[in-house]
């Protein structure tokens, strides 16, 4: 019953998000093209790296693994991307956050459900083609169907956890705008650091062992590296359980941080712009 009430309150935000996302179709198409292009650029860079190495493998990755890694990382990064920092910082900067506070809903839930709505079409447009494409590629290269349903389903679960971690991380980060007033620079800095630390730029396995083990304990590896490795079947069942629990742990930490920051920040709100 409580759940039903909860959904009734927040479903409209998802609907609003969906309607918003179709209001700017050209924007979405441009964004998608840009992302796909940068994905192919990475593909050709790594292809050059593999071509110039003597052996078949490069640090335990074959070229095939690398292709799967690149595209699944791209997909994961795209799906777990959260606009929270930017959206919240903008609302704080121009003061429109006040309009959210006069609505009878929880602040982070509004954002979450609105963003989910924003994402639905993007997910439909991008998810299936990439997964089908990657699996078709593997089939052609190896000559047999490699699709593993269990890994795929575990990937989806891990992906959802990763998105929620990303969301709460971004919300917490966005609240910094209460103190800094303008978050544009800090947001760019965050993107760079997170992309590197999460293994989205370079697989963590390619990094020096010490750095790799440090990074695997930070929350960032949960954002991208964990779900991708699960999809690729790189983890043993024990590792999968362990890594997912690790994700749940970081999710709890992020939710806690966002609540604490919100509680503290809201007192400092000074509602800019009249």
């Amino acid at each position, binding site marked *: 019953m409580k759940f039903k009430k909860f959904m009734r309150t927040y*479903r409209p935000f998802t609907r609003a998000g969906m309607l918003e996302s179709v209001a700017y179709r050209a924007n979405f198409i441009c964004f998608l093209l840009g992302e796909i292009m940068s994905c192919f650029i990475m593909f050709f860079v790594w292809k050059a790296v593999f071509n110039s190495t003597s052996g078949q493998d490069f640090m335990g990755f074959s070229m095939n693994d690398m292709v799967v890694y690149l595209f699944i990382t791209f997909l994961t990064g795209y799906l777990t991307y959260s606009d929270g920092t930017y959206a919240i910082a903008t609302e704080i900067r121009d003061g429109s956050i006040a309009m959210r*506070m*006069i609505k009878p809903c929880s602040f982070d839930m509004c954002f979450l459900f609105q963003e989910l709505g924003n994402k639905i079409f993007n997910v439909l447009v991008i998810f299936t083609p990439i997964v089908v494409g990657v699996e078709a590629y593997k089939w052609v290269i190896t000559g047999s169907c490699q699709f593993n349903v269990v890994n795929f389903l575990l990937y989806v679960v891990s992906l959802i956890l990763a998105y929620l971690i990303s969301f709460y991380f971004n919300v917490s980060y966005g609240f910094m705008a209460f103190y800094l007033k303008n978050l544009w620079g800090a947001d760019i800095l965050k993107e760079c650091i997170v992309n590197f630390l999460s293994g989205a730029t370079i697989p963590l396995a390619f990094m020096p062992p010490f750095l790799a083990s440090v990074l695997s304990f930070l929350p960032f590896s949960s954002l991208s590296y964990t779900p991708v490795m699960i999809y690729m079947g790189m983890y043993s069942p024990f590792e999968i359980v362990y890594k997912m629990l690790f994700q749940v742990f970081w999710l709890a930490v992020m939710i806690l941080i966002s609540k604490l920051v919100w509680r503290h920040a809201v007192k400092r709100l*000074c509602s800019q712009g009249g």
Partner: protein
Amino acid sequence: MIYVNDLRKEFKKTIKEPGLKGSLKALFKPNNEIITAVDSITFHVPKGEILGFIGPNGAGKSTVIKMLTGILTPTSGTCEINGYIPQKNRQKYVKEIGVVFGQRTQLWWDLALRETYSVLKEIYDVPDAEFKSRMAFLNEVLELDDFISSPVRTLSLGQRMRADIAASLLHNPKVLFLDEPTIGLDVVVKDNIRNAIQKINAEEGTTVILTTHDLADIELLCNRIVMIDKGKKVFDGQISELKREFGQMRDLHFELTHTDDFDKLVYLEDFKVTQDDVEIKNEGASVSVRFNSDKISVEDMLSYTLAKVHVKDINVKDADIEEIIRRLYKREVSIDEV
């Protein structure tokens, strides 16, 4: 219904010295100053009243409204509305209030207006039947039909304001906060909006708190006004009281045909009044006289002036609200000094 007790809000403001050097200094060693935006305000509003909350720009009106709606946290003091403390039970509290900030919109920028209302219906849990009759009512008073299918970003200011007011009334709030709801609107739209406020107040007994710079809003709508300046309350009472005391000031403006004629006008001596009741300013050929119409009738003033001098152009108008506030505030100061 609404109890505000000793409400106070302070902001920290960083003082920057001018230039790049000053900015750098402020970055490393900020020099903070505490600004008191709202200074110990106390008032009480009974159910069903329309309260006009007025004061000059920067007086702290919006800050008070923001504290009452739970957006800002007071530095000290309390406010209690419908038995809720806005900052404590925010989600429950805001379900029973409607808020319109004239300078912002609560509508979804990219959605058609109709969609916005159905989103709000779900958020506020409005039953279908009630939603239908409410929409019909709001449609009728605010004439939303012409633009209900357009995306909010394409609405004109007047349309948007009407839409915003409708949005704030959809869930039949017990208290309605309106922060400058008629700012920048034409006469017809203003009428529309005043009408809606009046109707909703009469039919549902909604308590309304309204800030405005338009004296007509106050005159047509409010039973009572609270006036603040520099964060302090300077007047609290019936509108008739205010008018009796301060609303009698008129401004007479005219353009002399011969600039030298100015010396012929000796209002103070001829009408035997003090400077409190007549205040004269002139700059070249243009003259403005502010006078108390209780002491000197408009007719006497005009006939005296026209008999003494030749004028090119002449008009009389009410002193605006900021002028009334200024006089009021000045009086307070002079009382303190005595």
